[in-house]
């Protein structure tokens, strides 16, 4: 077995060992986190204040007036449709 081969084997042992160690730790940390949250945190957190400058990117492409009219039209259509 040449030098590269032994380096590769060393790398595999260290690497897979570390990857498993890291992700096993993460499994337990995640379980712990979920447990702590479900115990201490309120189930539905208060919505934090939105930053004022973050105006919504995608403006409603239909103006509110029209939108309401459409809604009414649909409601009317549906009520008729049911009959």
């Amino acid at each position, binding site marked *: 077995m040449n030098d590269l*081969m032994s380096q590769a084997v060393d*790398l595999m042992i260290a690497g*897979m060992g570390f990857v498993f160690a890291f*992700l*096993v730790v993460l499994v337990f940390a995640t379980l712990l986190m979920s447990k702590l949250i479900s115990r201490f945190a309120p189930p539905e957190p208060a919505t934090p204040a939105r930053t004022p400058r973050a105006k919504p*990117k995608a403006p409603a492409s239909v103006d509110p007036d029209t939108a309401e009219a459409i809604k009414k039209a649909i409601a009317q259509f549906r009520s008729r449709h049911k009959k």
Partner: protein
Amino acid sequence: MTLWTGSGLFNIEIGQVVMIAIGFLLLFLAIRKGFEPLLLVPIGFGGILANIPEAGLALSAAENAIHMAKPEVLAALASALDVSYQSGQVVTAEVMDAFKYAYKEASSAELAMANGLAQDFGYGNGMLYNFYTVVIGSTVGPLLIFMGVGAMTDFGPLLANPKTLLLGAAAQFGIFGTVLGAALLDWLGILDFTILEAAAIGIIGGADGPTSIYVSSVLAPHLIGAIAVSAYAYMALVPMIQPPIMKALTSPEERKIKMSQLRPVSKQEKIIFPLVVLIAVVLFLPDAAPLLGMFCFGNLMRECGVVERLSDTAQNALINIVTIFLGLSVGSKLMADKFLDPQTLGILGLGIVAFGVGTASGVLMAKLMNKLSKEQINPLIGSAGVSAVPMAARVSNKVGLEANPQNFLLMHAMGPNVAGVIGSAVAAGVMIKLLS
């Protein structure tokens, strides 16, 4: 006359013809076959541009000056690069090789001087050379892509069933197994690799584009073209590579295992999870900090709910801009002298091995977990641990549906799927730590 002697037709070399054909092949695969087009269209196009004869788009100013080989320019460069060449000496092939070799071996101070001199003589850096330096040379490109991927990733399924992280760990055997495979090829005398090259090739098994590009830019930049092409091509081929392996390693009964519905995951868990990952990185693997740090940052922006405009930009404008430049930059490394090499064939061959080994390891790990635990998981979701988000998860779902038309595995497979992204980033950190 200058127009003719400077034309492509007059100067084109056979290697460039082949590389341009490969560029068109990549475009064909991307456009007609749908192979990861977001990356392979820019990579293929960049590969064609990099091989336009005499254009020098992928070369630095000094490399362009050396290529043009004007005696007075070479004389000036000779002093900067410490090559023995006197003004007026005949420019033979050996002289050219001496300059190219000296440039490759030059220190950063010598490079700065040589490129400055070349610019004084009117030569400039090629467009693609500049893109590569800024986007990949600085490592910023793959990291920003990773940030955007983080902002697109939903860890919900993983949080509902954290055990699936282990499947993402097992699938990284594809990475290290491939390193071993490269070492084996070297031992058998078939190909020559250094440990750095072997590690960079192994990362293909991570089945994650930005991680592959990041690692190979750090460990073996000269292989980045072949590695990136291999990684993206096999990611596109996941629906063909994985199913036979998955079926060979599982019984029909195993494939029919129904998994219980995932529990709902709270907003807080989603916000805090990227911070938990970050703490683990802080404590255990600083070398994974750039990759996983940016990934967690992107995911935190997504989940925290107060910076939608940043999250949206990270997922759209920014990642798209970086993707264009990253693809062209990777393409700039598709040059004949680096790509048309037996190593490339080895990389392509090892790449498919990497995907296969990763798939198999994930499935086998799932079977092992079923042995050790009462709560049964369908081993088909193990293959999703290789990453290749979200393709591998869809493959798990599809093979599962073939065995049992009522068995929807997609959400269950998303857990190991994103775990695989974390797993390969950890593996990348380990390799960088131990080797660089």
